[in-house]
């Protein structure tokens, strides 16, 4: 891929060996830099570690993890690693409980972030002649300025539309022939629905590329949006602790998100043992900043669960590809020693149109063995009166669930309206195993 150095072409073109070499040096630098912050200085001292003990990227395992809680405890500036006058920007992420977490950037950090973001848009097919509309909220939220700086770096005509005001969004897209957008998947769907309601065809907007992220969405949703608009949807992954957007992005292949390994050292760890997962195995994504001096973060536990896709991407970029996030560690269930996520169950259930949307996962213990029962409502509209039909469909569902999780799942088909309406994931899981760890 012909990528200019303006957007980090020399990094994008790196081979696996070159990435490994670069990461060794970058990690040494990043740890030494982190040690300048009060938080990491104390942390390393406590563990009896000297930054000089880190000699290669493999040595990462000597270093401690950093959690969201650590970021809260170090608030406001415990992880600041440069003199305050060198900082030109900060962002915060809204904590659901109490204190926010703050991230600081030097001029070089902001510059690097813009470069990473520009690369993301470039590999998805955006070019300097494109017109880009950013429908993210600006301000402390990173989706606004993050995408904005990246798009400018790429040289696109940038419209900082911000969030909301659907009529104006459509007007701007039309009048300025917007070809690339950034939005949440649900907002992109909202605009399309609004247009269809008004008897208009979203395809006629002429948008080619949509960068969608900031909330989870299914592959079905992507397909639907692509059909509605006639554009290609690219998955984006980012988190404010790692700058924001620009961490990982899909290339034209749309098969996994390339994570920029010159800027982030990637680990996938088993969420129970914290040891490295086997290649291709799902685990918690752990990231270390390699190119952020203002506030380096070491081994940040993202709580996002994913795996690294095997094989070489046909696009030629050697940077690893992350699979879709399968869930959060907070949602993870351990059943017979196997990690299972409600999203895996949901994915199978969604394929069965004879079922309604409501389901409950019940965990019980029988003869010292975990049992998983999925209770799911039958859909009224497809019931044909035949018990044989349900029997066959249930057997098929059970087989697919077994293939998905690796053990037999009990399936109970229940009447519509008999389960609590679905609001959030927590209520979908009923763990009656008692004392099970």
């Amino acid at each position, binding site marked *: 891929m012909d990528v200019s150095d303006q957007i980090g072409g020399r990094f994008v073109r790196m081979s696996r060996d070159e990435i490994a070499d670069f990461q060794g040096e970058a990690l040494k630098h990043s740890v030494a830099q982190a040690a300048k912050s009060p938080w990491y200085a104390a942390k390393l001292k406590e563990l009896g570690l000297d930054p000089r003990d880190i000699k290669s990227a493999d040595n990462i395992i000597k270093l401690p993890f950093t959690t969201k809680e650590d970021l809260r405890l170090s608030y406001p500036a415990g992880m600041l690693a440069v003199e305050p006058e060198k900082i030109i920007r900060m962002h915060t992420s809204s904590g659901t409980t109490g204190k926010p977490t703050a991230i600081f950037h030097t001029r070089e950090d902001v510059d690097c972030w813009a470069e990473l973001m520009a690369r993301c848009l470039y590999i998805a097919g955006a070019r300097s002649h494109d017109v880009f509309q950013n429908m993210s909220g600006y301000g402390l939220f990173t989706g606004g300025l993050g995408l904005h700086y990246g798009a400018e770096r790429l040289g696109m005509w940038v419209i900082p539309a911000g969030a909301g005001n659907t009529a104006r969004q459509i007007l701007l897209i039309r009048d300025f022939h917007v070809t690339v957008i950034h939005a949440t998947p649900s907002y992109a769907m909202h605009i399309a629905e609004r247009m269809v309601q008004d008897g208009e065809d979203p395809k006629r907007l002429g948008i080619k590329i949509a960068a969608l992220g900031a909330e989870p969405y299914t592959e079905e949703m992507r397909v639907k949006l692509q059909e509605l608009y006639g554009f290609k949807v690219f998955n984006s992954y980012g988190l404010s602790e790692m700058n924001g957007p620009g961490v990982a992005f899909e290339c034209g292949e749309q098969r996994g998100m390339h994570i920029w390994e010159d800027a982030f050292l990637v680990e996938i760890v088993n969420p129970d043992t914290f040891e490295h997962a086997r290649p291709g195995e799902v685990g918690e994504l752990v990231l270390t900043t390699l190119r952020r001096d203002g506030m380096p973060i070491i081994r940040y536990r993202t709580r996002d669960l994913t795996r690294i896709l095997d094989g070489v991407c046909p696009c030629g970029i050697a940077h690893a590809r992350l699979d879709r996030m399968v869930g959060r560690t907070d949602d993870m269930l351990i059943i017979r020693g196997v990690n299972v996520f409600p999203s895996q169950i949901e994915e199978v259930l969604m394929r069965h149109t004879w079922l309604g949307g409501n389901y409950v996962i019940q965990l019980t213990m029988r003869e010292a063995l975990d049992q998983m029962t999925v209770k799911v409502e039958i859909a*009224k509209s497809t019931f044909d*009166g035949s*018990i044989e039909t349900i029997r066959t469909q249930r057997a098929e569902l059970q087989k697919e669930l077994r293939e998905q999780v690796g053990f037999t799942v009990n399936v109970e*088909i229940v*009447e519509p309206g008999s389960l609590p309406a679905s609001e959030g994931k927590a209520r979908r899981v009923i763990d009656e195993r008692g004392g099970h760890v």
Partner: protein
Amino acid sequence: MYNEIRVFVENKPGKLSHVTELLGNAGIDILALDIADEGQFGVFKILTAEPDRAKQVLSDAGMTVAFNEVACIEIADQPGGLVKLAKALEDANLNLNEAYGCILERGKRALFIVKGENLEAIESAARSAGLMPLDSL
């Protein structure tokens, strides 16, 4: 051909009383009822004189309901009353998947409700044996 009502129910105490109460309160008379059971769930098969209204009543109450086409063949309610029909089906080489019966008038008229691959063939076999398939009850 006739529409039998099929209701999806979980296999739990109180389901039969719930369904029969709904129909009873609506003044709908149940002529026959059969239960197909699959352990954790089951399907009620209900024969009434007012299938459309019965379906509506149950559906309005949130139940999962469907029509199922069956053949309702009137036979004589007397010893050997079913033989005539059974022989007619045998002669036409027809298989039945499901069947149950009810008495319409004791000692006079009974009903045999059947489901098979080919309902029309079943009905015409009955007719040729001088038996009457009913379209309304």
